[in-house]
């Protein structure tokens, strides 16, 4: 006992002393060979699937793009420096995320920290980013709390909107279709009982009701459900023209397959996260055509097309058509803000992100109250692209195809 405690204590104090010593070392610009970027992302655990599609590839791509271009120019220091990455695996745990950020901030002394994937991890990381004064560019967090969070943590930036944005856009779009006589008044909603599904269904249910839709089915299913036959069987007998699922990727794929098998082919088939994934057309085969979902891209944008190409070349697969481009744009904003400030002053960079206008693959972007308010909210697969049908600010890239083509039975 004596030995143990003394030893632990010494160790703890030793680490501490070392940390203090490291932290107090002054860093001179002329000693620098790189701008240090750090991030902890979910390489394992429950979030690994999402991070593997929307977050990690874009971090890799951005670093690659910047370094191929010679790095970022720091005019005040008179150098142009490449990016150097320190990465950790947060193992999909909030506790690990927080500690990894503490480590990046105080041990590795990185200049900027990129956040992990998902709403929960970004919220968990908020206070820590704030404490160390790092700008937090949450590219994959959907939360209606964003305005309050941006006030609470001054250097936090929220890029993916809240549940209301997506739900309201969907309802507006469907109101137009109904009023044009393309669909009937009945809607069925199935939501995953997890953060995303609940946030969206909480916003969608009253919006549908306010718009005069009849919600004949509005239920949740647990995270990890593998069999959707009961849900599809029940819904298919209700005479709905619109089926909405606020679902996670495995559910999205399974729901599609089940609907095809049960030959439940409503005029509007809308599915939550995963529809915009590049793998979706593989899963759904010819039936991906006309399926709607969260997100979307501008199919006519050359910047987006070039981004898809670079992404595919580096990572081996196309990005998803929702959070990927937004995540990449958030990184472009960070890079441009650093160049404009001309050194690595975190608060100056954060201030620039908050106030400046930036040129990104999404077009010209200016944040409002620390939030990206220019978002694609509803998308639909048309001609091999997941095109934006609704945008919070601009107009639609394409008109919705309603009814969607009937399912082609798989062979």
């Amino acid at each position, binding site marked *: 006992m004596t030995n143990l405690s003394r030893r632990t204590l010494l160790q703890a104090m030793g680490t501490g002393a070392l940390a203090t010593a490291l932290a107090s070392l002054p860093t001179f610009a002329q000693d620098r060979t790189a701008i240090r970027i750090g991030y902890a992302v979910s390489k394992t655990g429950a979030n*690994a699937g999402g991070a*593997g599609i929307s977050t990690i590839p874009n971090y890799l791509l951005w670093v690659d793009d910047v370094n191929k271009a010679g790095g970022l120019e720091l005019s005040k220091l008179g150098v142009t420096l490449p990016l150097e990455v320190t990465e950790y695996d947060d193992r999909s745990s909030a506790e690990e995320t927080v500690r990894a950020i503490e480590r990046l901030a105080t041990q590795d002394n990185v200049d900027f920290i990129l956040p992990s994937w998902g709403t929960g991890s970004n919220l968990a990381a908020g206070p820590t980013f704030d404490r160390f004064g790092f700008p937090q560019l949450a590219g994959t967090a959907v939360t209606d709390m964003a305005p309050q969070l941006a006030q609470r943590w001054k250097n936090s930036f929220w890029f993916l909107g809240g549940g209301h944005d997506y739900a309201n856009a969907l309802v507006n779009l469907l109101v137009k279709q109904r009023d044009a006589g393309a669909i009937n008044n009945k809607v069925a909603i199935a939501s995953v009982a997890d953060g995303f599904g609940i946030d969206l269904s909480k916003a969608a249910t009253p919006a549908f009701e306010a718009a005069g839709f009849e919600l004949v089915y509005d239920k949740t299913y647990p995270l990890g459900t593998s069999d959707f036959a009961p849900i599809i069987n029940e819904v298919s007998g209700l005479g709905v023209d619109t089926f909405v699922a606020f679902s996670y990727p*495995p559910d999205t794929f399974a729901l599609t397959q089940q609907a095809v*098998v049960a030959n439940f082919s409503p005029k509007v088939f809308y599915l939550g996260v995963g529809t915009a994934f590049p793998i979706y057309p593989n899963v759904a085969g010819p039936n991906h055509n006309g399926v709607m979902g969260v997100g979307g891209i501008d199919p006519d944008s050359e910047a987006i097309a070039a981004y898809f190409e670079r992404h595919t070349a580096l990572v081996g697969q196309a990005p998803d058509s929702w959070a990927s481009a937004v995540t990449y744009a958030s990184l472009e904003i960070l890079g441009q803000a650093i160049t404009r400030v001309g050194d690595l002053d975190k608060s100056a960079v954060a201030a620039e992100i908050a106030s400046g206008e930036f040129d990104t693959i999404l077009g010209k972007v200016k944040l409002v109250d620390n939030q990206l308010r220019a978002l694609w909210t509803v998308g639909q697969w048309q001609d091999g692209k997941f095109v934006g049908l609704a945008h919070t600010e601009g107009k639609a890239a394409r008109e919705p195809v309603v009814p969607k083509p009937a399912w082609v*039975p798989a062979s």
Partner: protein
Amino acid sequence: MRFSAILTGLVLGGTYALIAMGLTLQYGVARIMNLAYGDLIIAGSFCAMLLFTAMGINPLIALFIVVPLGFALSWLVYALMLQPLARRSPNRDRLEGDSILATFGLLFVIQGVALVLFGANYQSYSFLAVPIDVLGTTIAANRLLAFALAVLFGVGLWLLLTRTRFGTVIRAVAANPGSAPLVGINVDHVARLAFALGGGLAAAGGVVVSMYLTFSATMGVIFTMKALIVVIMGGVGNLLGALAAGLILGVVETLVSSFIDPGLTLAATYLIFLAVLVVRPQGLFGKAAR
């Protein structure tokens, strides 16, 4: 409506039973609580997907490649890693503790390899996703096929265990590992075979579920736990129990989802499982301890 729910439930339950059968062999006979079991299932799924998408090999044919691979891999794992532990353990408690730790490590290794090879993305391919009408209920052909395969493997295994000498030996070891050597049975050998056989079944389960489920490198734990629940609910080492428990869980899940609330399906699964154990602590078909 009710009939179709029961039918859908049976088909789902067939999958549960299939993935549980291998584990019940491994735990019931080899006394290894294999936490890496689900990761072997996922490995089977990856193989099937690779064979199907890259070489166009039908998953049914892939079974003939993947199952022997699973068998061989499990054989090696047992021979290299678990047998020394089994020999070293003075008693069952000790082996259980050691095997939990060691297969927990194996879980990470398999998962890590899958992550390096395939990344963390969700994987899926479309095979036989065509509707088939069974007595007025529409069911996907691939699920029906999965059910048929579950029945096939179940019956095959049952015949193997009840009609062959090897099966008799396996059952003897499962029933009483202590006295098996007295009648000239090489317990080591039997345990290794049973473990390998269980691994083959896991790989088969992986091929089958890959036909209709989305999977990813990190999803193995889910299968392990589902299989464990089915095994425990049915009674350790009892094939019939695993079958019954799998079907019960499938039907309950579907009925709850259809008639009560999809939000309660998993809660209902665990509730049924816990209720069975409270009433019958040894599982549905298990014998009372000692």
